[in-house]
């Protein structure tokens, strides 16, 4: 075998005209850079992202500026409408609603974050194992996924919530237990497709070990769909948490969440509609922002949507 680097072998094959490459832009465009370019031009996604960041900042820092503690009752100022003192009004115990919305919002977002993280990680792991190994493992995981899909989510969640719900962490764990299958399905499908792609075959043909193939070739190309799924799961978690809490089966007082606030307000719909409208629209706003962001990520990370094609 001749060494390719040997000087006498250099340029034996004429360097052909390299056509298009000559006219290319100065900077090589990496995949990440392209994705960012696409994301940046996705106005709705940018709006969603900005909105979400603002909400998070508000939840984190606003309590520092409200003079009231979320659980501090004041019998003299019960059931008030929005005012300068209490911009969101107060509840039937005279607690400041703004402080409560921000605290409850933090709890809701925390649950969303934990669920998104846990369910995605668990789902990715199982989906990846099933998709990569195939065979019996895949059959087993697929049937578990099918089983979960056949279960009506809400009634079962309710049953479990009665037994295990009550504090934010247990609600998050419960939701993760039922939502990981979504991530698992996506990842399994991706792995199955990618496994048969020629660049993965090429890696096998050069003798790369399975961990390298997964780490360098399969997983990075699955990252986009995983990220999108994680985002959508966060939105879903917020809705499910609110539903459970509204039914009195999720987060329970003295802990609070946006769902709990809506639940507490349901007796005052006619007297004080703002009590239910404010936490309610906060839920909608958060979920909408998250879904917009997810849409943008999906478009940006889809390698088939090439620039200029």
């Amino acid at each position: 075998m001749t060494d390719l680097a040997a000087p006498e072998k250099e340029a034996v094959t004429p360097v052909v005209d390299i056509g298009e490459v000559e006219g290319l832009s100065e900077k090589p465009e990496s995949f990440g850079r392209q994705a960012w370019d696409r994301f940046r031009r996705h106005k709705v996604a940018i709006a969603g992202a900005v909105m979400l960041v603002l909400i998070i900042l508000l939840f984190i820092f606003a309590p520092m500026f409200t003079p009231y503690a979320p659980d501090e009752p004041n019998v003299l100022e019960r059931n008030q409408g929005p005012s300068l003192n209490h911009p969101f009004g107060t509840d039937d115990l005279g607690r400041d609603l703004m402080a409560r919305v921000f605290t409850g919002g933090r709890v809701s977002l925390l649950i969303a974050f934990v669920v998104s993280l846990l369910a995605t990680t668990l789902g990715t792991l199982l989906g990846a194992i099933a998709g990569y190994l195939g065979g019996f493992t895949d059959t087993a995981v697929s049937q578990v996924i099918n089983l979960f899909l056949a279960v009506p989510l809400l009634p079962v969640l309710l049953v479990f919530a009665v037994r295990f719900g009550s504090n934010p962490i247990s609600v998050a764990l419960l939701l993760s237990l039922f939502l990981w299958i979504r991530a698992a399905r996506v990842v399994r499908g991706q792995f199955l497709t990618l496994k048969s792609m020629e660049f993965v075959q090429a890696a096998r043909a050069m003798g790369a070990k399975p961990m390298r193939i997964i780490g360098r070739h399969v997983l990075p190309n699955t990252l986009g769909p995983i990220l999108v799924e994680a985002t959508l799961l966060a939105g879903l978690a917020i809705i499910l948490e609110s539903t459970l809490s509204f039914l009195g089966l999720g987060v329970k007082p003295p802990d609070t969440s946006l769902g709990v606030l809506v639940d507490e307000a349901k007796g005052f719909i006619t007297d004080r509609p703002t009590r239910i409208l404010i936490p309610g629209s906060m839920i909608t706003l958060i979920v909408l922002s998250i879904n917009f962001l997810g849409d943008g990520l999906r478009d940006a990370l889809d390698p088939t949507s090439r620039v200029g094609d």
Partner: protein
Amino acid sequence: MTEPILEVENLVTHFPIKAGFFRRQVGVVHAVDGVSLAVDERETLGIVGESGCGKTTLGRTILRLEEPTSGRVLYNGEDITDASNERMRDLRAELQIVFQDPYASLNPRHSINDIVAEPLLVHGWDRKKALDKTGDLLKAVGLLPEHGNRYPHEFSGGQRQRIGIARALALEPAVIILDEPVSALDVSVQAQVINLLEDLQDQHGLTYLFIAHDLSVVRHISDRIAVMYLGRVAELADRDELYENPAHPYTHSLLSAVPVADPDLERARNRIVLEGDTPSPSAPPSGCRFRTRCPIAQPLCAEAEPEFTEISPGHFVACHYPVPPGQSLVDLVGSSAAAAG
């Protein structure tokens, strides 16, 4: 005669068809169904056939990208079908592959340097040395080392195929399996890549297994050619012998079906147009597999499978009634029709 560098003995690759809740096996795809071949060092053996003939699976099974159901693959006399994982990793440096689809065969997220250097890194090279070599490899396939930090989507199909070739060359293999390497390319670019492959073979003493469906391309690049049909080799001969004296009726019809870019010739041809479609490889016909479409099939063809026999030195055919040298299948079809009428 020297020992062949690569030998395939009675190789069989079956894929189970599974269905139902318990994924029970309900059938078998006979992708490769008893193929024997030998490839000499520095030779190009062309494998030609239509979709479903098993040519791609054959290539992948030789590299153990698919596990063989039975049979053996010998590389320099060593049986690699039961080689350990460790041994197989070493052997993979010697046996490389170039894929058909220049878009799917390069990881879109990796730079060209990363792609071409990967085989070296996998085999324990130091990153800096690997990147040095990448520049030389890119030069060897007609690209510039500066292209190394670009990404696959910035290149045209022909350039991507050059990158795929550079990657296959990185470990200085002895044998390269070329799986339809020019099928996806434009005509004008296809010729560039074929010339490149020929140059590289001369420079590095490579042995090629060239898999394709385009008979003109296969004839151009090959020394010997094997024609596959439904998982089997129908005919194997020297390139000129195969084109001048084809013996198998399938080879005849393939050759006659290829359009030639020469109007007078093309319009004067007596074309044999085969009836029907290739049967499914999950239910191959009894006896000779080609008999359902063969214009000169006889009762014997349905009963017994034809042996793969040597009809002249180096010319093998699996047919009960091979077409005699110099005769055209059209004449035979005419006479058998006359006899029947």
